[in-house]
């Protein structure tokens, strides 16, 4: 296969992230990222870094899409139906996405 370049592949955006994530901060999908819904979740492609990521859960996709107009990532998670006990896992997933530049902090409106 010709095409999915190695550095682009971040198999498992939900893998453990090393660092914590500011759940109370305001975030958004990077404007250079295209998100394509898939039955398993979504594919995300960053046109700047040319990285491809896989979002392996639809709930995570809902969270990521909602980030831009929620006051915090925590709020976006809650509204997507993420329970308190799952928050840590979602925080790790978001941290991984932040690390690869897929989502970025934003100044709240």
């Amino acid at each position: 296969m010709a095409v999915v370049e190695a550095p682009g592949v971040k198999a498992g955006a939900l893998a453990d992230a090393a660092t914590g994530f500011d759940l109370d901060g305001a975030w958004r999908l990077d404007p250079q990222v295209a998100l394509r819904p898939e039955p398993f979740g979504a594919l995300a492609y960053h046109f700047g870094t040319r990285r491809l990521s896989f979002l392996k859960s639809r709930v995570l996709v809902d969270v990521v899409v909602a980030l831009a107009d929620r006051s915090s990532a925590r709020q976006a998670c809650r509204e997507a139906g993420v329970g308190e006990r799952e928050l840590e896992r979602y925080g790790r997933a978001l941290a991984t996405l932040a690390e690869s530049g897929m989502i970025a902090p934003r100044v709240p409106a």
Partner: protein
Amino acid sequence: MSAGGAPALGLAERFESGLDAPICLTWELTYACNLACVHCLSSSGRRDPRELSSEECMAIVDELQRLQVFYVNIGGGEPTVRRDFWEIVDYASARRVGVKFSTNGSRITAPAAARLAAADYVDVQVSIDGASVDVNDAIRGTGSHAMALRAMDHLAEAGFGPFKVSVVLTRRNAGELDRLKTLADRYGAQLRLTRLRPSGRGADVWDELRPTAAQQRAVYEWLLDQGEQVLTGDSFFHLSAYGQKLPGLNLCGAGRVVCLIDPVGDVYACPFAIHEQFLAGNVRQEGGFTSVWRESDLFLDLRRPQSAGVCGSCGFYDSCRGGCMAAKFFTGLPLAGPDPECALGHGEKALAARGHRPLPRPSVNMSRRAANGSPDAIVVV
């Protein structure tokens, strides 16, 4: 690992069973080329008079946008010789269909490089097949090394950023990998190393140019060391049977997550498989590319579980997946069985046992001055 309702399938299985749209695809815009590389996988040279018109190309871009295909790998032939090349690139970029195009560099002048540096969503791969002039020019033609370096100079001077230096691994350049990496570094570019396929004219030189088993092993170790610093287009996943997987998806995406559109609109499973057996349809037929992708018998078949054949009993099958379909096909090996360059040497045995049946020939041969399918000059030094 997964949050909120884990899918039953792993990603590799997901992808092997196909997606509604490709992640990306290769689009050879023309068979016309000002070079005549001995290993050209599309046997390019002359333009096909049935080539897709500008309007048809724009319609394909519209379709790719609707399908949310992230980017296309544009190649040829030499894609920049098409008069509407820049128009197609601009049209795609404006629709957020990313373009990564491969070029021999001949038309990457200073103004062209400046234009590229200013464009969003466009990436460039300059092909070169040797760090030294002799190694490169024996394969790509006299003057082609200088041509590629000139293009790289222009891109670097224009501040394009990290373009790609694209190298096909051969027996001649396997010893030059560090030099090639240094060359890419010097330009602030990224080295991309891909596998020599026995496709197109590559079939005629494959025996002489493919890396030796010892070189292949050394290259694998080198790639492991380089990690994500060197791109491979996932082309060495068959080598994961040496032990550790290289970075990448490590699967054959043909007809599942990638495909090829050729200059006349024929859709093949992958760029290395230009043969009737891997022809899924044509974008000019009713329903266009989308229906070929979603409904062609060939692609639906490729998305079903494939037989491992004799590889089924090998402990490494889960990582190497039997290797490259096109490499097996064009060397006359059964598709359910080892890759001709199997890391464990099973391919060599299969090659030795295959007898003297004639090998399949590609469906397309636009080579200049070559009526019989052979390149006019194979200069291998």
